[in-house]
């Protein structure tokens, strides 16, 4: 049986998170057998044949002039239609903004369960099992799928894409779409960029977060400068967001974003349990805090005890010097 992957495009470009999902589907297909089929909603082919190298055998293109922007209803019907055609054993989405909105709609349409924001998928005795964090990462659950197709969304940055040079291009086939723009009761009029050029926290390789110890919003300038030097995205603790120093979109933790970057630098964050929940799956954690007893040091790989106002500018300088030498 095949595996179906929703291939997400924005502005005519396939998003990296969809390559991750294709990579995982391809790995599962090696055990389960069957082809990896993608389905993409777009106004025109965004170069789907090239996804052969990412693990796709075939891509169904649901083309409609109105599909330049996300159309919740139209996209959900298209993915459900693809499932009718392909009759997959499982449907994979990226747990991106679009995937987390779209997947539940498709699941409700198909009448099957959905495991959201998974961090691992394995096959046990021919059965799919998904691992996903709950309580923002304070615990993990494993779930099984009593119905077919199994539906899963995969957390960004956790699964790796395949760089499969030499693989055959994917066969791109049209998928008949039924879409009436006027029937879209919730219609995206436009997309407003708020952080142009910066990776979103959920997709960032490096995050530099600041906490209440910075004493005021103006002092986030040094956090931004360090982030700039590291090529990082800026995050914040709940205390800082609740105080209005940073927008909520920056919040890391249980009522903010759960993140898994390669490197997480926590500055002047003491480490409340709800914050730790949101970032403890980061690959490497650096904590900078003047209180040597701060709970953040218990989960940090590397700790630096010091006053942020003194050490952060020095750290930024040191990173800049390194960058200059490379």
């Amino acid at each position, binding site marked *: 049986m095949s595996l179906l992957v929703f291939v997400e495009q924005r502005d005519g470009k396939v998003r990296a998170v969809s390559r991750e999902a294709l990579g995982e589907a391809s790995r599962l297909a090696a055990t389960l057998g069957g082809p990896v089929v993608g389905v993409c909603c777009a106004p025109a082919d965004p170069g789907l044949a090239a996804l052969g190298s990412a693990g796709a055998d075939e891509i169904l293109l649901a083309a409609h002039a109105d599909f330049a922007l996300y159309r919740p209803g139209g996209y959900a019907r298209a993915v459900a239609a693809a499932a009718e055609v392909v009759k997959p054993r499982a449907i994979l989405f990226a747990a991106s903004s679009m995937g987390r909105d779209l997947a539940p709609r498709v699941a*409700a349409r198909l009448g099957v369960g959905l495991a959201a924001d998974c961090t691992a998928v394995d096959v046990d005795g021919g059965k799919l099992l998904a691992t996903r964090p709950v309580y923002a990462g304070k615990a993990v659950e494993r779930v099984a799928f009593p119905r077919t197709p199994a539906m899963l969304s995969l957390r960004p940055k956790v699964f790796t894409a395949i760089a499969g040079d030499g693989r055959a291009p994917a066969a791109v086939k049209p998928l008949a779409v039924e879409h009436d723009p006027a029937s879209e009761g919730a219609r995206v009029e436009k997309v407003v960029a708020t952080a142009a050029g910066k990776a979103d926290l959920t997709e960032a390789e490096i995050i530099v977060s600041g906490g209440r110890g910075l004493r005021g919003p103006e002092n986030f300038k040094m956090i931004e400068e360090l982030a700039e030097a590291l090529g990082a995205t800026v995050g914040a603790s709940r205390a800082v967001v609740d105080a209005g120093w940073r927008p909520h979109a920056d919040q890391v933790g249980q009522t903010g974003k759960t993140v898994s970057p390669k490197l997480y630098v926590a500055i002047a964050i003491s480490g409340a349990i709800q914050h730790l929940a949101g970032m403890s799956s980061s690959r490497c954690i650096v904590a900078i805090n003047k209180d040597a007893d701060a709970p953040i040091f218990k989960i940090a790989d590397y700790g630096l005890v010091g006053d942020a106002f003194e050490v952060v500018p020095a750290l930024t300088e040191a990173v800049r010097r390194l960058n200059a030498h490379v």
Partner: protein
Amino acid sequence: MLQAVCIKQVADTETRVKVAPDGKTLDPAGVTWIQNPYDEFALEQALRIREKLGAGEVVVLSVGGSGVQSTLRNALAMGADRAIHLKTDVVAPDSLAVARVLAAELEPMSAGLVWFGKQAVDDDAAQVGPMVAELLRLPCVTVVAEMELEGERAKVEREIEGGREAYEVRLPAVLAAEKGLNEPRYASLKGIMAAKKKPIEEKSVTLGEPNLERVSLSLPPPRGSGRIVGQGLEGVEVLVRVLREEAKLI
């Protein structure tokens, strides 16, 4: 306009999670139960709309055991008019099953707006809202960071990676609130007193055959113990060196 707000009772975010002996569920010992934080933004927005229109009714609904009544009572104290408790002792982590129970109750209510929080902070699934919308064939926007009602339509902004999607929404519709949509009020003493007299209608419901089955619940592997690389400015040099040579991250 009737507005329905679907709320969930969850473990407080300060909870240290312990797994029950069955290996599948949260050990409830010592857990403080609260209204899901995101649901507060949903309820607050519904109350503001009712106040602005000067008419209408806000009904809160919750699926769960008898314990959820305290959360419903709190929502009434914040200002909801009445509550419906969809009572079931089997609380499976199965969003579709819960969505079906809610959709069946909501369908004859014909609410102009059905509100949810963007996700519950226990299972973090973020599914029940859009599933209910799909089952009722209603328009839906999730992760709502801004919302302005304009008659039978609403202007809504949804938080996405690095930006926002601006939606035009036709009512009736389902909306799932993000933190920051508003500043939720606290229940006043007067509200708490008034809530005691407001009705909570209790209805027994049954969740259908499972769509998703939890096999196990466990704690994540503890992180390997790290180390303090240094103090103050001298530590900066060491930190840069370990990040470069040991962790190979910069």
